[in-house]
């Protein structure tokens, strides 16, 4: 298959849109199940089209830019954010042959792009020229920077263990032994992912009851949809990376590779949703203390441990 066809159709844009509608639907249904209610029900069979309807509602909305806002930045940011996270997906091998590009620096590029997100979200808050957005922007920078260091360290642990940055090669070399040795790194990675992508219980930049909606407060309609989608894609991409690095990617018996990939992703998402339904949001200072005093030292120790293991294995 040509690479551009891949980028548009199969592991690319359209495929991802369908996947995200599915993830949104699952999130709503699982949350509804925990809440003991029904969830989406009326739009489409079993409410499957509810999210589609919501997205189309957002598309119809008026394009509102605040009078004081920086108009260029304000309208540009959602697309910049979307582009940055969409680029992440290109490096994910969903199965043996369905990936868009594969380089020897896959992991590095993904982590670098994720590290590039805080300024984008900060500018989203800053360009809105609203108090709540501005505080949200500051919080996002604070939180992401403290979350990214454990993220990098735990991802690099896997890279050190397998001796490569190429996703495909990592998947091919993965084994049960690797899984158990990298288990601490996996846990740190998933926690750091929740922090970096502002998922509950670390949704401090969007804390609705404190600062309305953080840097998303002034956004509406299509801009809002794109920004939220880019945050979702970021989470999806990081979970995909977690699957590739720690859970053996598309490997698995009987079923085709892509099915295994999504079963593993779904497991991670299930964890996210259940945490969301049961864990209150923590405070910024508590988060910083947790990141710098617990997570980062653990990630460092873990990296040292992996280097030690690597010395004995090779």
């Amino acid at each position, binding site marked *: 298959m040509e690479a551009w066809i891949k980028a548009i159709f199969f592991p690319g844009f359209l495929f991802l849109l369908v996947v995200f509608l599915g993830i949104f639907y699952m999130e709503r249904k699982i949350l509804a199940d925990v809440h003991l209610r029904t969830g989406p029900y009326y739009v489409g069979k079993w409410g499957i089209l509810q999210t589609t309807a919501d997205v189309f509602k957002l598309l119809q909305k008026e394009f509102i830019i605040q009078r004081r806002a*920086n108009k260029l930045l304000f309208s540009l940011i959602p697309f910049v954010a979307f582009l940055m996270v969409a680029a992440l997906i290109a490096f994910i091998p969903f199965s043996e042959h369905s990936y868009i590009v594969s380089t020897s620096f896959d992991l590095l590029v993904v982590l670098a792009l994720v590290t590039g997100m805080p300024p984008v979200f900060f500018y989203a808050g800053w360009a809105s*020229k609203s108090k709540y957005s501005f505080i949200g922007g500051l919080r996002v920078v604070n939180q992401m920077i403290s979350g990214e260091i454990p993220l990098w360290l735990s991802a690099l642990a896997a890279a050190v263990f397998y001796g490569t940055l190429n996703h495909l090669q990592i998947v091919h070399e993965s084994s049960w032994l690797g899984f158990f040795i990298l288990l601490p790194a996996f846990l740190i990675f998933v926690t750091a992912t929740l922090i970096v992508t502002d998922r*509950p219980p670390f949704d401090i930049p969007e804390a*609705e*009851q404190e600062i309305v909606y953080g840097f998303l407060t002034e956004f509406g309609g299509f801009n809002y949809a794109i920004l939220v989608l880019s945050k979702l894609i970021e989470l999806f991409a990081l979970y995909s990376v977690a699957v590739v690095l720690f859970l053996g990617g598309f490997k698995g018996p009987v079923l085709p590779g892509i099915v295994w990939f999504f079963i593993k992703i779904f497991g991670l998402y299930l964890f996210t949703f259940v945490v969301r339904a*049961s864990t209150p*949001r923590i*405070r910024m200072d508590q988060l910083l203390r947790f990141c710098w005093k617990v997570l980062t030292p653990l990630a460092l120790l873990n990296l040292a441990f992996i280097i030690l293991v690597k010395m004995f294995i090779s």
Partner: protein
Amino acid sequence: MGNSISLAGYTFVVEETKEISGEDLGLLQEKLLQLNWGVQHPASGPMRLKVWVDGDEVVKVDPDIGYVLRLLEKLVEYRTWQNAIVNVERACFIDNFGTMTGYSIAAEKIADVELPKKADYVRTILCEGGRIVSHLIGLGSFVGVMGVHTPMQWALIAREKFLDAFEVYSGQRIATASIVPGGVRFEPTGKFIEKMVSAVDFLEKEFIPRYAEVFIDNPTLKIRSQGIGVVPKEKAIELGLAGPALRASGVASDVRKDYPYAAYGELDFKVVTKEEGDAYARYLVIWEELIESAKIIRQAIEGLPEGEWRTKFPIKVPAGEAYVNVEWARGCFGFHLVSDGGTGPYRLKMRAPSFANLWAMPEMMKNVKLADVPVIFASLYMCHGDIDR
């Protein structure tokens, strides 16, 4: 400038307002940032808190109320003794029985009407039902301000059962208008009792175990709310806190126990108190009172006497006045009712517990983090309708 106001000798100082242009940063230039936490805010309800923050620290909080002022106390003066309950119960729609009971007891005191025993028991059942309904919402909204909506959903399911019982009793689910001077308005039918028992069963067998498993002793909830908004015992009395907030500071003040009204004197229950006085203690007090209330309802249903549920209340009440306190869901609710011998109240003053708690709040919100503002706000368990009346 020859307008009449300046001629009369008044001067106005107009604060200089500076428009922040799109170019400069604007927000960073002032060290203190004033946030308008409310009127249109996801967690504020119909009131505004002016919150001055220095970075992430709250410097000062100033509540601005009056957005749901309905002049309930004034409206009562245009009603007859019986009809006035519709204004009294709207002080806060979540627990309407407590306010109606207080008003009715005050009216009965002035008119010197003796109540049948059954009316007292039905009032007790309804009041505790109202307390449970209110506490369920209180629990849900306390955890809700930390971004978890599960408790609210669970609480609403349990609340539905009680609302069903109220509907069977009075035909209305929320504003029931069911307690009047001279007793209760409707006969407590077998079906109502049955519904109430099934609601309490659901609460005790389904809701309480499920909720206690997840949201009581929840470690994240604890690190968020323990040690936040601490009010020591002496300070709580000095500030005039009311209800669960006062009991969480270690003051065993409960009108039901101290000055029993309705059937509370004959029932066995304990006053829940905590020593810590922080947001988590207030949450636990609400939680344990919920369990106590369910027990009170069971006792009251068992001891429900036979007989009339309503006596004749005179159309014209002799002149006089009465002050009555009742333990409402959110604290001690005072009614000062004055009669001038007419067909309706001459004057009614309601002393609202939420209002007392609200003005204690700025004291608690000094030097806390911005993220603690909604937690303390929700832990004080206030009702906006009650603040403004």
